[in-house]
């Protein structure tokens, strides 16, 4: 006989081992992504054909630098959650699955840090 609550019986099951938090974070980053995508497209259109000096100068505006940082972090977070689901859907063999999940996390961290580093470097005028 199971001596667990209905919740206790299902916690930690499923391919991701944690479901609701992942689901919710994907939605939170999706909602945040809507205005940030508009900002990104707007930024690129405004700075089309701009020289490097003009791009660097634009990042010295703290609002632009912060919005671009938010865009990168939100994008990276959302894409990591999204690809995790794709990997869990198609990769069932354990060594392959965990290797891909690990690569997904590493790639996301490298993208986040490289992107934020570039923005801050320009923003601080170094």
């Amino acid at each position, binding site marked *: 006989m199971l001596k667990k609550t209905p919740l206790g019986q299902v916690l930690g099951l499923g391919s991701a081992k944690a479901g609701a938090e992942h689901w919710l974070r994907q*939605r939170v980053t*999706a*909602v945040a*992504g*809507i205005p940030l*995508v508009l900002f*990104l*497209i707007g930024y*690129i*259109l405004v700075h*089309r054909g701009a020289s*490097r000096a003009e*791009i*660097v100068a634009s*990042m010295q505006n703290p609002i632009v630098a912060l919005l*671009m940082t938010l865009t*990168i972090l939100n*994008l*990276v977070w959302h*894409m990591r959650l*999204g*690809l995790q689901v*794709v990997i869990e859907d198609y990769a*069932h*063999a*354990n060594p392959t699955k965990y290797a891909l999940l690990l690569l997904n996390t590493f790639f996301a961290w490298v*993208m986040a840090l*490289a*992107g934020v*580093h*570039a*923005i801050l*470097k*320009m923003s601080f005028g170094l």
Partner: protein
Amino acid sequence: MADTRNARRPLSPHLQIYRGGLTMLMSIAHRITGVALYAGTLLLVWWLTAAATSDPYFDMVQAVFASVPGRLVLFGFTWALIHHTLGGIRHLIWDMGRGFGLRHVEMGARLSLAGSIILTLAVWAIGLGVS
């Protein structure tokens, strides 16, 4: 960890069992554009890194993006970004428990496809200075 799958247990039906349609195509497109945008992040971070590095490096990256293959990739990037955003809005509406009626689902599929194409062309028309 042990492989707990039972080979004889029936699996849930996959793509090939359903009749195709625009809604199915949009669902698949949402996933494909998501994966494509994942790779596209590399381009955005590359561009930011180049801008933070040096003039010659930035000019090189700009030249790559301005080339014909570069523009084709960026055009696809733009469409994927807009389509995934519109598809995401559809998903958020469903998450609120709305828009599940057949008519609304079909309408959403058409609107997101047409909207993504129109908005992509509009962004590029502005970008290329076409008036």
